[in-house]
């Protein structure tokens, strides 16, 4: 019983996703012919009441019922997100995280358009039914991919990137990406004005090698995790295939229909490659995900389904990522993402910069200026804003608009008349509305430049297919000998066997995270029937896994309330959690009180609303000029081990793991 929906303030459904059980339940209660009608009718009172309460300066954050259904509500700008769970599999915190992740994915897909409620509403609820269904299916499948990863992949549990631990190979690959691949693409005439900024190779969800060109800004962990979700969504890996969860199957349906398409259209080699995994047809025979929405049904009947999916997986996706420059942080700057499949489970991802991305920065700068002005006016500081900043914006915007002709110009002229003319009202509260107008117009420009299919000029702005193919082949050749090793390695990245029993008796599992770099290390927790980990098969491993998952959620709860150390004796196990800060030389910095936050604050993690970045910034205030690093360690021991020994283990792990020379793994 799961559901997630996005509604506008007027209770218009902008997006929904439900599992089969929830859908059947709704259908049973309200037998409207169209499912969308049922769900909007049922939720409408909640949505309207939410808006009413907001005007009273309070708003709902969650509901629970006596049969333990949970509802979580959160508003981003003008969009209300509601997530529901009725099967006990998700807690309130999980639902809130899902909402934030959904919002993050929408930001990655729509960039600055998300800053205007009106424009975003038009994007999410396109008039064209087919276009809308295509988008909704895509978002639904992204959500399912994310949920599946969060439930099964440790790196998505703690929201940090897991690297494949193989320093030599990793180094070789980075060198290859830098010297050969990126250099060759960026010097090719077929690159269509684009420039590769980042290139990385994924083995399932794990990072083998990552290269950023010299003039690229750092790719944030949040964005990298979002991109991994997108890549996984395109090429779901089969690591957990013998543990099928209904969550992924819809994704697979997507892939299968997509495959059917390919059979007709593409080269046979690709398809045969695709079907090398024996599980695929098996899964296809039991399709679980069926939409009963008559709209969709109709669409499917009229075979327009075939067009619902993007015609070519290699078609770049527009993604909007954070760029940090010397003069500041620019969220949601346009990039193209190329996901090239090398082998099943191994993917090459290229991120390129648009030729006109400078425009995006200007638009964002102006938008920010108006947002700030609006905030100041709202706070009643109108009089003091007649100063420099807006005059500076004025001349810059005048210059900027010379290159563009649009509705923006008219609004801007109007704004200027009010703000700057002698007889006009000046910087008063009346200007707030015009600030809003300007912001919407700027988002409109942004949409026109970067989101609509025809850009400002009609020159093709993509790497040519030939170039892409060459890139793919180059990396395939390079990794050919390693392919099988990599696939195995990704399942057994490090194992508890690497930790001699004599050194760590009683240690069952651990996760160590470097929050400054957004990376994590953990022994693999394979719980499938086929692969036996040291934890054994089935129930025991599953038990440890469940415990680990709930431990992470517990530690986050305490961290949210300001506790950075935690030990728990739970059943037959003893759990520890530590968070600490170091400077660059590895000197342990003294603990400082961590801010206490309300229960309904943004989830703690790095994928959406990077908590640790804020935490580091908060902590760094007392350490000016020093690079502060933040680490976390979680361990599970057998309960019979004396606490002193357990703490010694933790200390050893904490000091060894990040020092390659002493790391027993390397």
């Amino acid at each position, binding site marked *: 019983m799961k559901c997630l929906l996005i509604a506008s303030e007027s209770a218009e459904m902008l997006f929904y996703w439900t599992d089969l059980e929830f859908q059947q339940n709704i259908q049973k209660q309200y037998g409207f012919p169209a499912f969308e009608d049922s769900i909007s009718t*049922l*939720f409408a*009172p*909640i949505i309207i*009441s939410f808006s*009413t*309460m907001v005007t*009273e300066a*309070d*708003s*709902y*954050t*969650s*509901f*629970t*019922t*006596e*049969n333990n259904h949970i509802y979580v509500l959160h508003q981003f700008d003008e969009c209300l997100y509601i997530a*529901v769970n009725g099967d006990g599999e998700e807690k309130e915190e999980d639902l809130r995280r899902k909402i934030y992740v959904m919002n993050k994915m929408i930001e990655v897909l729509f960039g600055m358009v998300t800053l205007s409620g009106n424009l975003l509403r038009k994007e999410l609820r396109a008039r064209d039914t087919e276009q809308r269904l295509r988008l909704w299916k895509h978002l639904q499948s992204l959500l399912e991919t994310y949920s599946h990863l969060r439930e099964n992949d440790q790196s998505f549990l703690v929201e940090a990137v897991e690297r494949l631990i193989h320093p030599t190979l990793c180094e070789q690959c980075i060198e290859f990406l830098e010297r050969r691949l990126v250099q060759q693409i960026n010097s090719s005439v077929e690159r269509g004005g684009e420039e590769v900024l980042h290139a990385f190779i994924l083995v399932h969800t794990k990072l083998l090698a990552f290269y950023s060109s010299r003039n690229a800004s750092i790719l944030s962990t949040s964005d990298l995790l979002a991109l991994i979700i997108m890549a996984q969504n395109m090429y779901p890996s089969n690591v957990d295939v013998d543990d099928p969860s209904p969550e992924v199957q819809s994704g697979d349906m997507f892939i299968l229909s997509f495959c059917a398409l390919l059979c007709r259209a593409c080269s046979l080699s690709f398809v045969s490659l695709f079907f090398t995994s024996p599980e695929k047809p098996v899964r296809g025979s039991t399709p679980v995900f069926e939409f009963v929405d008559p709209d969709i049904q109709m669409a499917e009947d009229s075979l327009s389904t075939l067009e619902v999916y993007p015609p070519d997986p290699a078609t770049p996706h527009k993604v909007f990522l954070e760029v940090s420059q010397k003069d500041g942080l620019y969220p949601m700057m346009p990039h193209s993402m190329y996901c090239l499949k090398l082998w099943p489970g191994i993917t090459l991802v290229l991120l390129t910069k648009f030729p006109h991305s400078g425009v995006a920065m200007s638009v964002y700068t102006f938008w920010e200026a108006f947002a700030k002005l609006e905030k100041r006016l709202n706070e009643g500081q109108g009089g003091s804003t007649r100063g420099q900043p807006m005059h500076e914006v004025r001349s810059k915007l005048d210059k900027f608009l010379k290159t563009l002709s649009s509705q923006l110009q008219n609004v801007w002229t109007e704004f200027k008349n009010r703000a700057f003319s002698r007889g006009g009202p000046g910087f008063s509260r009346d200007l707030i509305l015009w600030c809003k107008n300007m912001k919407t117009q700027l988002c409109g420009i942004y949409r026109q430049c970067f989101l609509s299919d025809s850009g400002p000029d009609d020159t093709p702005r993509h790497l040519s297919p030939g170039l892409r193919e060459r890139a793919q082949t180059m990396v395939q050749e390079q990794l050919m000998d390693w392919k099988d090793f990599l696939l195995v390695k990704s399942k057994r990245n490090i194992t508890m066997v690497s930790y001699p029993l004599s050194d760590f008796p009683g240690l069952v599992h651990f996760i160590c995270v470097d929050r400054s770099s957004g990376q994590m290390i953990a022994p693999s927790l394979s719980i499938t029937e086929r692969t036996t980990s040291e934890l054994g098969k089935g129930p025991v491993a599953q038990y440890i896994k469940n415990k680990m998952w709930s431990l992470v959620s*517990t530690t986050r*709860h*305490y961290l949210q*309330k*300001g*506790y*950075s*150390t*935690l*030990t*728990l*004796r*739970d*059943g037959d196990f003893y759990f*520890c959690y*530590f968070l*600490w*800060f170091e400077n660059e030389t590895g000197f*342990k*910095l*003294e*603990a400082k*009180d*961590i*801010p*206490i*936050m*309300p229960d*309904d*604050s943004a989830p703690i993690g790095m994928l959406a609303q990077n908590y640790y970045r*804020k935490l580091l910034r*908060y902590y760094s205030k007392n350490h000016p000029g020093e690079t502060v690093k933040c680490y976390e*360690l979680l361990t599970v021991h057998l309960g019979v081990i004396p*606490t*002193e020994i357990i*703490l*010694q283990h*933790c*200390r050893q*792990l*904490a000091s060894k793991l990040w020092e390659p020379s002493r790391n027993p793994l390397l």
Partner: protein
Amino acid sequence: PCELAVLSHDFHCVCNYFFLYDGSKVRGEADPTRDGICYFYPEETPLDKQELLCGQLAGVGRCVSELSSSPARTFRLRRNKFAIRMKDDFFWALGCSVDVPTVSVSEFLDQLIDLFCFYNGPVRQSYQLNSQETLAAQWARYLSHLQSGSSELSHIFSCLKTIDSTNVDPLLLLKAALILQACQRCPLVLAGCILFRGRVVSTQMSPGLTMKVMIHESETYTKAQRPNGTSASSSFSGTVSSTTVFLTAPELQDLQSAPVDKGFRCCPTTPQRDGPSKKTRLSRTLSDTPSPESQVSNPSLSKPPQKASLSPRLSDSDVFSPASSHSAANSLNPSPQSLRFLSNGENTVEDEAEESRSRDSTGGRSQIRSEGDGSVFEEDSHLNGGEVEGAFGGVFEFQAVESGNEQPHDDKVVEEDSRVSRGSVSGHKAGKSDPPALLPPPHRLSDASEENALIPMTLYMHRVKGLVLALLVEPHFMSDAASMEEVYHSSLASLNGLEAHLRTISPGAPGGPGPYTFAHFDCIQSTLTTNLSGRSGGAWDQPFVRATSLLHSHFCNTETLQEAIIRSACTAVYGTRSVAQETYFQQNGGSLRNSGIPNHQDSAFSLPSKARHRLLKHGVNLL
């Protein structure tokens, strides 16, 4: 990108909002929301704000309960956290600060509603019989009682306020327990408790029931406000009063069953909303060791009367109205209550008779056992073992000193015998024919009816200055002059003595922060032992209270969790729990400077052993 917000903590104001909304009064579009508002706290809230909150929350409540096919339980807003109850057309909401643990808010609301039902009977019916203003005063009274003067910790645990047993001579506690046992010798007395200045000295009732009874002692409450059901007995110089109260079926069964049978009786019941009733009744005093009365009303014997009496009780109209509950005392017109009483009484009478006989003879104790007729008794004596005998010894000695007068017993025996012969032939017969014990527990009513079934009883109060003896008695106890006199006189002298002793005890002066802070919660008795000064606001207390509140929630939600240490930069708190208790410990003072990195020499990890040693002298055994 904004900075992390730092939240200030304020547990002081427990309840921000409380309201009861009757959806049945607002059916049509034109019906104004205000018609449905039965009570709203704070009362000075502007009406449109009241309407907004009631309308919105009740509306969303209905919507959510439809979507999930289950009543809403909690609503969280950014500034308030609401516990919600929905029953019939009623909608209750209790809003607290978001920092109060959700479990505690929910428990608070349950207590509030239970209190109301305890003194007023079913909600729908009380609103039919009484004016809204009268009942508003009731809600206000219960609300202020539940919030009054207790510390933040007691709100977290919803515990009983008890006298500080470390300051009190244990003999006084024993004496209190004996007074209660003596009272229980009257067959019409179900159970009792003794309170001193708003704190429990000794109780025979479950924590939940004790908590309900305690409100009568509340200082904020004046007699003038009592709406109904209360009468001061003239013959006892104004120190004795009584009021009608309503027990739930499980509560009544609890009282009627011997503690020995408790486990056997409690297990198979359907899960109940009612928190305290889940807990087993135990008492640290001797008062709970089975008295002859409670032995007799063990499941197998009390079952038939229940069967006979509970079914008619389900119809609200004839049983639940105060009028009928008063008439219950009339033995000529046997209403279900008196029927049940009679059959109970019958058993008790036999027992009484036995006892008087045994008292007449010199070797009393052993004779009680041997003279018990029938297999059921023998079984019980096996189960009870030797402790019981010790308790009996206490009772007898005590009675010999304090009451000395056995005449009332004998009188009553005769009186009751005559009633028995008239009233309960069927019950009696069934009692004999039923196979003894080891059956499924006494016929449980179906879920719905069980919740609705509220059985009128009488709460008898005897006040001696700051001391109050509160007894739950059969409704016709108040009309039974002989029984009343007996209970009154048998306890008067000892109550006076107890009061005089308790009065002289000075409360231990709350000192500043000691070397450590601890809180020990007894989940079974619902009592809290702590060295935190009761007054909140001590800056050094806040971190401890916050940590305790978090850990308590965690313990409540995770059954397998046994112990935890949590540490922030400035405090480290250790929490441990077993089935029966939760203990929290914090070391004060000293430097906690650390880098947060795992270190076995870290002082935080020595908390468990420190707690074990330090708390021994407070009577807390963590070994």
